[in-house]
């Protein structure tokens, strides 16, 4: 079923971009047509990770009403998708663009929401994409809330830090629930010793589920290999047998059932 997935978190550095990109590549490798958007306008990163050339138009231009959505999509299928297609909408990483985006007023944000909402028609219905994935900025700010409102499903990523868990809980109660969004919790960078045995995993899962009203989608341990890659690798493609990819494959399947 075609859907829009927003990947969000309370704090920064939880692994949203890595998860968004790898999830997008994973769905594409399943033969799906996927569109990935960098909506973290304060710290755009997808263009650097994918080593993509500078484009004429950015997602910023689409939201500004300067161009059609087709103009901003960059097809990276040849490099990053074995079967389906993977198209990316990059955010403009220039300092000037970041400054401009952070100075937008409420009326602009309202129009941007309208443009994000219209992607459901233009991309899912007209262009027949199977998935749209929004890599959002952390916390409660316009760009991330606009993405959440426009999405069918929110995958909220949290680390094990107590401030992160408490903040995530607040967002569940005061943001996702208010917008009646289907939501899944993905615990990331979990201390590996917590997940060594099935008993350990169940104990931690029980603790997390008791603390939050969200369906716990999965728990991803902290992998040194990922840290070592320095954020330059699409793991789903380069290390298909890595445990991270296997967990993500499970996550992708669970998302489809939400």
């Amino acid at each position: 079923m075609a859907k829009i997935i927003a990947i969000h978190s309370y704090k920064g550095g939880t692994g949203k971009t890595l998860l968004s990109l790898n999830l997008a590549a994973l769905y594409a490798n399943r033969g799906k047509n996927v569109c990935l958007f960098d909506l973290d306008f304060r710290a755009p990163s997808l263009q650097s990770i994918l080593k993509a050339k500078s484009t004429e138009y950015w997602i910023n231009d689409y939201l500004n009403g300067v161009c059609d959505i087709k103009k901003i999509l960059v097809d990276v299928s040849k490099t990053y998708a074995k079967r389906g297609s993977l198209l990316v909408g990059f955010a403009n990483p220039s300092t000037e663009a970041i400054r401009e985006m952070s100075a937008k007023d409420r009326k602009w944000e309202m129009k941007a929401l309208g443009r994000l909402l219209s992607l459901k028609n233009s991309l899912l219905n007209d262009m027949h994409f199977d998935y749209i994935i929004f890599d959002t900025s952390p916390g409660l700010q316009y760009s991330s809330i606009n993405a959440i409102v426009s999405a069918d499903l929110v995958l909220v990523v949290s680390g094990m830090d107590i401030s992160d868990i408490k903040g995530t809980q607040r967002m569940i109660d005061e943001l996702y629930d208010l917008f009646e969004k289907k939501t899944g919790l993905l615990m990331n960078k979990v201390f590996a010793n917590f997940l060594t045995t099935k008993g350990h995993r169940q104990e931690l899962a029980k603790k997390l589920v008791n603390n939050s009203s969200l369906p716990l989608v999965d728990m991803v341990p902290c992998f040194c290999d990922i840290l070592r890659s320095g954020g330059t690798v699409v793991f789903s493609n380069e290390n298909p047998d890595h445990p991270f990819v296997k967990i993500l494959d499970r996550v992708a399947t669970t998302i489809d059932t939400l």
Partner: protein
Amino acid sequence: MTVRKLEGTHTRLLQKIKESLDRLNDKMEVIIELQKHSSEANVEIPDVLDVMTLLSLPDHLRKTAITICKFEQATAEEVAEQTKRARAVESSYLNQLVMMGYLKKERRGRKAYFFVDKDGGNKTWQKS
């Protein structure tokens, strides 16, 4: 009453009238100032149906408002189909949103359409 006494009474009366007018002037200046600030406040915080406004709306109105945002424009019947609530209920909520200044209403033939006023007079969402 002598002429001098009469002049004295008139002078005191005029003085009282002048004092009353001064007090009235003071009050008028305060009211004008208040109105000026209140209109400035309206300029700074316009009635915009953005996500922060959506968050601040009561649950029942938020559902209606989000549906209109998704549709760009819709009748009460179309909104009711999405929210699974009665048409009359949605009609009431939509009219409340119009009165709050977040939506506009336009009658075309027998149907009333509701939409977000994005540009203060521009009637529909800009198409992508």
